[in-house]
């Protein structure tokens, strides 16, 4: 805590500081520790990229659903039973052989967390945030994805309350797979646009 010298009596170890802050806010009745447990549990166990993977797999097997997803992602996502959320609107952008989409938030950490959970550290890092908009192909190369020069790259910088999810391309040769098997292939990274889905 170097930004405010008056705070120097507070321990510098974040774990101790959080503990002290939590116990103070609980003591004063501002916070219910059971509610904190519920928040942590929700993000560790209930909300995560498996939700997004199910949305993608459904879009791959059901063309009408895919169209609804691209037209109004929130309603299409709610169809699959995920808790409706008030706030950020979700927009799905589709990868094709000719177009590759990449999601970033250069200003902070905006991320489609109702379908992907909380963002990974690299997504929030200075390296990713600074480079994704100026050197998207170099960033993708760092993730092991080399795009052909003729592919159009669309970078979505989440500067408002819209949250973007990439609908990745269905991998070739996956025609025989069930929706559940397809969902198992879909990675978080493919829905941010830094990877393709592989068989």
């Amino acid at each position: 805590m170097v930004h405010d010298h008056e705070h120097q009596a507070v321990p510098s170890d974040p774990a101790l500081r959080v503990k002290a802050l939590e116990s103070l806010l609980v003591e004063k009745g501002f916070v219910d520790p059971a509610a904190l447990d519920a928040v942590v549990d929700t993000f560790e166990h209930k909300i995560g990229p498996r939700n997004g993977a199910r949305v993608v797999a459904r879009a791959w097997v059901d063309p009408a659903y895919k169209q609804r997803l691209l037209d109004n992602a929130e309603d299409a996502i709610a169809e699959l039973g995920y808790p409706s959320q008030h706030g950020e609107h979700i927009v799905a952008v589709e990868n094709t052989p000719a177009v590759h989409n990449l999601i970033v938030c250069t200003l902070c950490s905006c991320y489609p967390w109702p379908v992907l959970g909380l963002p990974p550290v690299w997504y929030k890092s200075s390296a990713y945030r600074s480079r994704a908009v100026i050197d998207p192909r170099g960033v993708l190369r760092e993730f092991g994805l080399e795009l052909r020069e003729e592919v159009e790259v669309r970078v979505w910088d989440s500067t408002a309350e819209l949250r973007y999810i990439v609908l990745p391309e269905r991998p070739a040769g996956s025609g025989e797979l069930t929706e559940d098997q397809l969902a198992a292939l879909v990675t978080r990274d493919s829905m941010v646009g830094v990877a393709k889905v592989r068989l």
Partner: protein
Amino acid sequence: MNGIHDMGGMHGMGSIAYEKDEPVFHEAWEGRVYALNKAMGAWQRWNLDAWRHDIETLPPADYLRMSYYERWLAALEKRVVTYGFVSRQELQEGKAAQGSSKAEPALTPEAARAIDRGIPSSVDPAIPPLFHVGDRVRARNLNPVGHTRLPRYARDKTGEIVRDHGVYTFPDTNAQYLGEERQHVYSVRFAARGLWGEAASARDFVYLDMWDDYLEPA
């Protein structure tokens, strides 16, 4: 503000450190600070834009040195004092002052499981859009010292409106509690070459979401 957080297009931040099978929270305190922010946010004393600005106004060297959740912690410690939940002395001692009253928590465990963060949009025919899909627009060359969601790299650059997202609260005024100034937000498509020059690929585009007040006809 032209802060360190506005880092789109900067060089020198290094390579991207990827962690395989990354946990949601690396340490228990990260989950607690995330949850504390939500629980204190439920008091609705501050709005999301003011919250973002608190993170942005961390001193730049601290911002870069701190981990993501350390920033959240630093901002929350500051906020609970600024908004009068606890005194500086209570924060320093980690203990409530003698005889202080006890509140009822704003966030219940049931509500904690709902997803409700964010600033909602709306369809509001009373607020007409100033621009339409297909319009050429220029991002205004604004340099406010307060909160803004208009990144430096897009200012004074020309793009095209590709989608009208509806009506949203304007962050620049909302962060300062100067009013919601609700207005349309659009997806604006910028050619990478327009943003970064001839070295960029002619096939690359950057899409930003922009409020009416960030735009002028081009």
